[in-house]
């Protein structure tokens, strides 16, 4: 541990003293001493790569890495059959493993990954789970309708659905003016950005939960979707009774088209995992789960980005813009997401990513 660090600290001054190969009494030690120099060079390169100091690597080192790795790997194979030197075997085991992680390490950095992710990777992942999106959409619509119908039948349901934080003035029997008041345009943007930050971290937490719960065959994700949409249905009914349907829809759609879409995707991604574990097809359950999990993770990164947009929309345009503006923004955002997810990046599908 210590020696390589010191060596790299003092630059390339490290040249191991030529080992006295002939002095070794054992054949396996001679084998080791002959190759030791290559191993140490490989270790030096690997340590520098692990520390992320790629600039310190010369071109020769980079070119030599695969060859050195194969040398070390074949040394390990030979040593396992000919040497009983436990220290050398342990060292080679660890060296080959570390070198393997670097040789087969991430090929591009975070920025390059983000570029390919936004430039088609996300859209492809979302198109791949279209069936789950359809199911989640149906469930959400059903949840809204159920919320509406239940509250329409019996007002007591409203209190069962809607959490206390929303049911301040917005309760059944409230007058039209009070309800209109709750949809008002704010006078200025003070306090709004903190509100946006809070909304974002709260919603992102919920959608991560919806995704994670999909692991239990998707059922809890669906329940979460139904519950949330039932709240929406109940409130929709409330405003409809007061004749404010359009105003409420405008108020909601500014950020709602983005946020509900994000929640839809999170639920669908969770369900995708649950569904592929319940019905893995010809694959093993483990490989089906990991394949869908990686796809779902891409969708979830997209969901978090969408929620950032939704929080910004919710905090500023929703509180500051009038009804027509709200409707326009909501529709434009919805069209944008649909175009981006389902029309963008189609051509790249043919080329191997």
């Amino acid at each position: 541990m210590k020696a390589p660090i010191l060596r790299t600290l003092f630059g390339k001054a490290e040249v191991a003293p030529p080992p006295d190969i002939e002095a070794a009494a054992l054949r396996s030690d001679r084998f080791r001493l002959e190759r030791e120099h290559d191993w140490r060079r490989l270790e030096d390169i690997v340590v520098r790569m692990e520390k992320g100091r790629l600039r310190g690597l010369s071109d020769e080192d980079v070119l030599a890495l695969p060859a050195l790795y194969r040398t070390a790997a074949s040394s390990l194979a030979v040593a396992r059959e000919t040497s009983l030197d436990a220290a050398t075997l342990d060292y080679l085991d660890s060296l080959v493993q570390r070198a393997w992680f670097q040789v087969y390490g991430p090929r591009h950095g975070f920025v390059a990954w983000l570029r390919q992710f936004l430039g088609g990777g996300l859209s492809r992942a979302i198109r791949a789970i279209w069936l789950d999106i359809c199911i989640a959409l149906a469930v959400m619509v059903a949840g809204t309708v159920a919320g509406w119908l239940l509250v329409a039948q019996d007002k007591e349901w409203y209190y069962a659905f809607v959490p206390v934080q929303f049911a301040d003035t917005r309760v059944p029997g409230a007058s039209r003016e009070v309800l209109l008041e709750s949809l008002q345009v704010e006078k200025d943007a003070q306090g709004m950005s903190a509100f946006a930050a809070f909304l974002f971290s709260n919603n992102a937490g919920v959608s991560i939960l919806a995704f994670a719960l999909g692991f239990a065959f998707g059922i809890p994700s669906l329940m979460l979707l139904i519950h949330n949409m039932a709240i929406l249905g109940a409130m929709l009914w409330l405003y409809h009774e007061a004749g404010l349907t359009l105003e409420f829809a405008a108020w909601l759609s500014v950020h709602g088209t983005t946020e509900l879409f994000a929640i839809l995707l999170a639920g669908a991604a969770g369900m995708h995992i649950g569904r592929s574990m319940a019905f893995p097809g010809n694959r093993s359950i483990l490989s089906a789960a990991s394949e869908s999990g990686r796809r779902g993770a891409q969708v979830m990164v997209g969901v978090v980005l969408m929620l950032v947009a939704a929080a910004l929309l919710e905090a500023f345009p929703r509180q500051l813009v009038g009804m027509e503006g709200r409707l326009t923004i909501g529709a434009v955002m919805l069209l944008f997401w649909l175009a981006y997810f389902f029309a963008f990046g189609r051509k790249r599908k043919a080329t191997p990513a």
Partner: protein
Amino acid sequence: MTSQAAPHLAHRARRRRDVVTPEGIALPFTVAGRSARAGALLLDLVIMFVTGVLVTLALIWIAGGLFDAVGGPGQMSGAVEFIVILWTLFWFLLWNGYFMVMEMGPRGATFGKRAAGIRVASRDGGRLTPEAVVARNLLRDIELFLPIVFLLNAPSGDGGLAGIAAAAWFAVFLLFPFFNRDSLRAGDLIAGTWVVEAPRATLAEALSTEGAARAGSSALTGAEYRFGEAELAVYGEYELQTLERVLRDGRPEALESVHEAICRKIGWNPGKGDERAFLEAFYAQLRARLEADMRFGKRKADKFS
């Protein structure tokens, strides 16, 4: 192979998996122990918690300074608001980003995992992709924090039967690693990853180039140790590697007792004062013999075989 040759490593052999790399080399991985992973997690949580508290305190201190500088809460709401945003986003990023960013790095491990000598790797022998790291970390909430919340609440009976059922259900996630061979947690399962040991061994000196193993005779007394066929036949690979450890550690009392044990076993009269040279010579000759047999495909795991 190692499992036959070294019985002292048998308990590790159960956790050993050979992954065949794309160029056809069987690379041995050791699945990390559950205790090592739990320790790494605790360490990470402590790091996250301490960082979070320190940043929170710093922000509170800055906000307090703002109050003093401006003189009243009325003027600087914009600055305070900015601090609140910073704080909210910081907690979100710390909570969700710490594991992801650290595991996406070239070492595939958080600080806690590095300290425990383990790392995340792809189960199929391919490379560890960013998607896999994201997937395995998104499940942390339901595996760790929700179960703990529910388990703490269930005994109070507030949630009724549903609370107890939820606690039992979440306990499944919490205890997931205990019910499979590779100690995968739910996140590992859906990401196609596992956590393996990442040993960082340094190359020790070759033993046969020094001392009596090289010269064949003791530098101290000049005595030359030669062991016969029957004397070398009593020990196997396990004893050889134990002797190697004793020689590398070089503790005098261990050298003495091992020296005495070997002399008793092969029927020599143990002398005093020249233990190291004796053991070096014995080690070199025993290893030469066992390795020569090995080249003909004959292996002797230990003294009983």
